[in-house]
């Protein structure tokens, strides 16, 4: 682990087979560098959670590849058994801190379990390691004997984070880690995640529907719509000058906690709902709701292409459109 510019390139194309096809995640590609945070945003049903779960092989991907680490192993092709040594290097933080902790285990058991299962620590060393982890996430060492019900939502999320850190992972997939929390607690957890990223040199895939939270934590952001990435660029560029009409509409839909700015902004109200992913529209999936759509959008599916350094967008008209950010 010396090379700091290690790549985790990911190319995937996933079709979950049913009677027809529900293309939950439909050919998405991105890469994450060591220490980087990639935000995945989109509305419900856009495939962001499915994408995250495929990375951990919690759901087997239908096709595609996921090259991980400096060994450049393709995790998508490994058997269940071969996958084991890699599992400890990719961990997950879940949305609901109430459902993701076993109520009958103490905090010490919950945080220590990954190490017991993987036989990395035992006995007194295990205990010390658990205490160290609890302190790293801002809990006290005496919390080790308490049960999850004795903690508030924010503290439970800290337990989940300690568990994810137990095996010293390189990549953490955080699926809506703060959406179940109160506003004042949400800020604490976001700060903790940022702090741990520096301390342990972690990479995050941060999945969330809240654009302002994603902007805050991410270096780069990928916007998903109906199983595809429509735009990916660094966080600031994305919000200041979006290149895809869907990104523009998403940004416009977020109510700003600033009454006078909110009165002056132009509000783009998208008509209709996200289409049924089993019967996606022809051409560009976004065209029925897009106010800039022309004939070509109905016929041809735009490819994700590079339009500027670090900016990729899937829109036929991205060169000519002048879209507004915040």
């Amino acid at each position, binding site marked *: 682990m010396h090379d700091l510019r290690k790549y985790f390139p990911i190319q995937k194309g996933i079709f979950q087979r049913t009677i027809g096809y529900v293309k939950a995640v439909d050919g998405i590609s991105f890469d994450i560098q060591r220490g980087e945070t990639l935000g995945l945003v989109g509305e419900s049903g856009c495939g962001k959670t499915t994408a995250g779960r495929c990375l951990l092989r919690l759901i087997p991907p239908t096709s595609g590849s996921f090259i991980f680490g400096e060994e450049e192993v393709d995790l998508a092709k490994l058997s269940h058994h071969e996958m084991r040594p890699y599992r400890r290097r990719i961990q997950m933080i879940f949305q609901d801190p109430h459902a993701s902790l076993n109520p009958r285990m103490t905090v010490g058991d919950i945080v220590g379990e990954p190490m017991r299962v993987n036989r990395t620590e035992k006995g007194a060393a295990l205990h010390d390691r658990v205490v160290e982890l609890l302190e790293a996430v801002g809990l006290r060492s005496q919390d080790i004997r308490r049960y999850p019900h004795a903690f508030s939502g924010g503290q439970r999320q800290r337990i989940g984070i300690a568990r994810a850190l137990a095996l010293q992972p390189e990549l953490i997939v955080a699926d809506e880690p703060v959406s179940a929390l109160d506003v004042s607690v949400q800020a604490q957890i976001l700060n903790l995640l940022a702090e741990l990223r520096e301390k342990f040199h972690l990479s995050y895939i941060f999945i969330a529907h809240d654009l302002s939270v994603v902007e805050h934590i991410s270096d780069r952001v990928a916007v998903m719509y109906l199983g595809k990435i429509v735009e990916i660029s660094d966080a600031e560029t994305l919000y200041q000058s979006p290149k895809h009409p869907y990104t523009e509409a998403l940004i416009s839909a977020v109510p700003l906690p600033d009454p006078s700015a909110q009165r002056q902004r132009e509000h783009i109200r*998208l008509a209709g709902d996200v289409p049924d992913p089993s019967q996606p529209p022809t051409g560009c999936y976004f065209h029925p709701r897009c106010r800039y759509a022309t004939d070509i959008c109905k016929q041809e599916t735009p490819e994700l292409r590079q339009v500027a350094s670090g900016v990729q967008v899937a829109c036929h008209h991205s060169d000519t459109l002048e879209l507004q950010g915040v």
Partner: protein
Amino acid sequence: MDSAYKTSAKKPLLEISGLKTVFPTDDGIVNAVNDVSFEISRGQTVGVVGESGCGKSITGLSLLQLVPSPGRIESGEIRFYRNGEDAPLDIAQVSPKSELMRQIRGSEIAIIFQEPMTSLNPVYTIGNQIAEAIILHEQVDKKTARERAIEMIARVGIPAPTQRVDEYPHQLSGGMRQRVMIAMALCCSPTLLIADEPTTALDVTIQAQVLGLMQELQAELGMAIMLITHDLGVIADLADEVVVMYAGRVVEKGTVDDIFYHPLHPYTQGLLKSIPVLGKTPQRTLPSIPGTVPHPLTLPTGCSFQPRCSERMGECERMPELVGVNGKTENDEHDVRCWLHTDF
């Protein structure tokens, strides 16, 4: 539109004073709503913000005498100015099961909830459910009620209303269900709509549609809205006045501009600083409020916020009163419950 309401003389619709709603539990009495006072004027939107457990939803339910058992309103007044009557009616004194309360619910004060799926009955068509509300409150036959239902469905922007009227809730998307809820709430033209986290379960683009719809219908029907939410963005978008609640009490209230641009209570200030704002240069660390919301049975002595407050001082061991301060905008009241702004 909202500025028109602000300049016109305020006509009171609802005055809540000293409202206290309690829940007796095995471990003691929980004061879910404690000494809450605020006013809602006709046609105005009042936003009630706070974190989970602060009593904002229970305040909304108290106004309709819908507090779930064993909870009850212990003291306080809810003066409701009904159409065509000069003297207000104190809802706090009306029995929850009385005929009078039934008349008020739905036809004069309506409520919409966060989760549209659990608020709709899955075994009846949406047309049936809207028509039921109309028949309950007005002397009309089934056919007229159905026509009114179709009209309401069209009005809330659901396409193909004649077809949709016969569909079941599961056939609709989340945004459409919330529109049905709004149609049902507004079918009897209430003077007050209580919206409890109306868009929390919805995606942002759908949230924008529903909030836009609520604004349009408010302008059209002139009803007042009590908007309960934890989302400060939604408050900034819709509210004229804001009530900030913490641990069952009102800690600050004022116009939306006063609250967002000149917050006085350390809790309001902390809350506003701790949310990431889209487009503001991302800071690495967000200023956060330490600790968590206290448990309602073990509230700290004095000011409930003092253990988390960065401005804590000796006086905070006693509960401050909600007092008026000179608001930064003219003619407007700005109240705060904090010793920093109160004479000892």
